[in-house]
């Protein structure tokens, strides 16, 4: 396609939109609503995923040993645990280290000194086990429990796991709503374009008789759909961009207890993915909606 034809097509596409303002606006509005919701859900999902990731590296499984266990056996247990695929790292913490940590955290200097060189936590040497797949935590805990020489296995109360299942739920619900909205958007674009075609029937007929290719005739309508899609994607992106910061600070203020442990994603980090995805979806439905309509209404000859 030459540059002249390109600009001509673009101009005609915009003209189609302006002629058919009501339906174009309705189409843009639906895509906007759709992608706005998508953006919100994306915020939630992306942040939860981020939180889970942070949780995965900080929350671990702690393994304690039978009293009087030998150092060799401890090493053996360490090796057995390391063999598991979901284990990212195993860290040995000696009874002395645990005691030091405990003193530092919970006891005043004077109180600590009364213990002298005694270690009341003599049997509290442990392994901290870090997972690379939080969903395997339950299975791992059961596995470690059965190892000879293991007295007790502590693990975090599955915050990460419940986050993950919540995340999946959010994903399913948003997916369903977005698919419904997408269908409505395609329908509206299709209606918009077919109205444009019926208004221009005579023109299209003349174009054909003086040698316009099908491609030349169809292109403005496809462009119309794509422009609607792009505008329908840009509007929610811009709104979401300015909303994001406000929403985050609102959430952290209101629900500070739940969320203070977690960090939120940077806005740039979110839009790096969200912007191209939203634009692609917008362009995709714009193209799809107009393409099927043009195919249906503009018979070839």
């Amino acid at each position, binding site marked *: *396609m*030459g540059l*002249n*034809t390109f600009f*001509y097509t673009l101009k005609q596409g915009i003209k189609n939109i302006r002629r058919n303002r009501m339906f174009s606006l309705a189409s843009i509005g639906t895509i906007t609503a759709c992608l706005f919701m998508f953006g919100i859900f994306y915020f939630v999902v992306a942040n939860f995923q981020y939180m889970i990731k942070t949780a995965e590296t900080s929350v671990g499984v702690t393994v304690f040993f039978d009293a009087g266990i030998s150092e060799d056996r401890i090493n053996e247990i360490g090796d057995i645990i390391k063999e598991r695929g979901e284990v990212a790292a195993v860290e040995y913490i000696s009874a002395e280290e645990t005691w030091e940590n405990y003193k530092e955290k919970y006891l005043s200097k004077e109180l600590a000194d009364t213990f002298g060189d005694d270690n009341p936590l003599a049997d509290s040497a442990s392994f901290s086990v870090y997972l690379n797949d939080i969903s395997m935590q339950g299975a791992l805990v059961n596995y470690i429990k059965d190892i000879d020489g293991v007295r007790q296995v502590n693990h975090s109360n599955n915050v990460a796991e419940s986050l993950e299942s919540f995340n999946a739920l959010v994903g399913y619900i948003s997916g369903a709503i977005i698919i419904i909205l997408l269908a409505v958007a395609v329908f509206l674009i299709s209606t918009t374009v077919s109205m444009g075609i019926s208004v221009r029937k*005579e*023109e299209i007929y*003349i*174009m*054909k*008789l*003086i*040698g*316009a*290719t*099908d491609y*030349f005739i169809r292109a403005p309508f496809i462009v119309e759909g794509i422009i609607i899609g792009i505008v329908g994607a840009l509007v929610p992106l811009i709104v979401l961009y300015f909303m994001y910061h406000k929403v985050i600070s609102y959430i952290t203020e209101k629900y500070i207890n739940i969320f203070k442990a977690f960090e939120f994603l940077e806005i740039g980090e979110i839009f790096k993915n969200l912007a191209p995805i939203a634009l692609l979806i917008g362009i995709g439905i714009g193209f799809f909606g107009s393409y099927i309509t043009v195919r249906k209404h503009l018979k*070839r*000859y």
Partner: protein
Amino acid sequence: MANSYDLKKALKDIEAPVIIFENVSKSYQKGTPAISNINLQIRKGEFVFIVGSSGSGKSTMIKLMLKEIEPTSGKVFVNYKDLSRLKNGQVAKYRRNIGVVFQNFRLLKDRNVFENVAFAQRVIGMPTSTIRRQVPAMLSVMGLSEKLDSLPSELSGGEQQRVALARALVNKPVILLADEPTGNLDPKNSWDIMQLLDEINKKGTTVIVVTHNQEIVNMMQKRVITMNNGILISDEQKGGYTHGT
């Protein structure tokens, strides 16, 4: 493929007919055919009138040549092509060599004179610079230089006719099909248009004109094909308007 190209060139060189109707019939619905069993040859560079009473099948013949409709039986060849064998993708390209003035002008009502003519060039992807040069030149030939910005509704019938003609000619077609180009013009305007068509013909374009204008046909002394009830009843070189109406 090389063979068929050579054949085409050879056909052109011996001035084979640029339009051939071979036993062509066309029925729109069940009922009497609009045209039946037409056999006809038109050579490159000819000027041909098609005359005959209303409903005798003249426009049907024009539409067949443009491949706007398909014959019910028989074959139409135009510009050394068998139109029944043109593929979908080739039809547009074929039509670019044919200029056409429709019976009811078929101008775009929402575009000005310049755009109506430019349209024909945009459709075939002409650069804007060419359009800016050739469209005003063509409109000036038609005496419409003052009307570039007018909408068709602001023009007289004769002016609209000339815009339609400008659109048909701006791409320098090999063949010009004009369906009643002087339909509702006064004698002076009709005569001017015919002189224009004659000039175009002298420059090499094959011109086929459907008309009811008896006087002009008689004066121009060109080939005249007369239709009656879908049948070709006479075909005379330097003929006159003798039958029908």
